[in-house]
């Protein structure tokens, strides 16, 4: 590709948006969930790197809304709406939520991946945003990137290679 594309990085417990021909990516998703919201008409893509399922357990002074599924999704939606996105056009995709280590008799933290996925789905339903594709679970890490021009989500992993959805 000759044309230079701007790449927006989303860190852990972070969210951001990119428009037109830009790319938005987050690396090394394990039990975390990478969730994207996309408005095809505006070619506007937003991504959140969610770490924990619920802000109920938060003990931090200043809440980082991007960290929890129940707060990150509404925050991402609000950000897209500020930029003119219409909730009726927005579609979501997500990847991650794996269980990196398997233990016998594992406690709740060990199941954090599946719980993150469940919590994201519940919140999407509540926000009435359709989930059109997902690649979740398993026991491996993922790096994801979305091209705002096409809305295609690219998922890379060490064990299963690259796939698009």
């Amino acid at each position: 590709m000759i044309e230079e594309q701007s790449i927006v990085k989303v860190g852990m417990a972070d969210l951001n948006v990119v428009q037109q021909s830009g790319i938005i990516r987050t690396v090394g998703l394990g039990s975390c969930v990478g969730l994207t919201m996309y408005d095809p008409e505006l070619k506007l893509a937003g991504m959140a790197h969610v770490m924990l399922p619920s802000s109920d357990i938060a003990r931090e002074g200043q809440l980082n809304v991007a960290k929890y599924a129940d707060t990150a999704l509404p925050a991402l939606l609000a950000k897209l709406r500020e930029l003119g996105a219409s909730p009726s056009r927005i579609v979501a995709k997500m990847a991650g939520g794996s269980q990196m280590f398997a233990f016998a008799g594992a406690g709740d933290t060990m199941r954090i991946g599946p719980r993150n996925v469940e919590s994201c789905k519940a919140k999407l339903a509540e926000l009435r945003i359709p989930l059109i594709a997902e690649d979740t679970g398993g026991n491996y890490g993922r790096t994801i990137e979305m091209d705002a021009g096409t809305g295609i989500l690219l998922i890379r992993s060490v064990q299963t290679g690259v796939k698009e959805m």
Partner: protein
Amino acid sequence: MEVFKHFKEFKMDVLREVGNIGAGNAATALSRLLNKPVDMAVPKVQLLPFEEISEKVGGAEQVVVAIFLRVEGEAPGNLFFILSPEAAKSLLNRLVGFPPETDGMFNEMEQSALCEIGNILAGSYLSSLADFTKLSMYPTVPALAMDMAGAILSFGLLQFGHMGDDALLIDTTFLEGDHEVEGQFFLIPDPDSFAKIFKSLGVPMDHD
């Protein structure tokens, strides 16, 4: 997390010593296994943003071999023993005589051997730490993963997740004489464990 920002240098020194004693014993164990001297760097104790923790092993996308143990007992936490895939192959070759294959994957025997090596090293790390602090600490059965560093390490940060965006990490690098086997120990005590560690070592907690 504010409480950790105000840790005086003295407390960092105490934690550095915790890393020193634990990793020192693990290095000795590794040295006996390899029958070669193993050097160890001075442990680093840092309060790091989540993002930067995987930078310590080459970035979030860097593929690493990690043996993970959950520490249970009075001062729970997470312990990682991290190697590059090449170092892990080299370690296996020397210890068990497995021929180093080139495809980069590990078969079942190799995985099991790596887990056992991790178990021995982590066990010596923890037992010396338990002796030093007089706290009971025991490891769970080790789990092995070869994957992106970000995906692996984020797992050890979950206990810190609901407190802030940083974690306190005790990081010790060790390497064998000819640098073929280089590894890192990351001890990430749970946030609540620090008070217990300090208390049992006689460090007053209230005068920060």
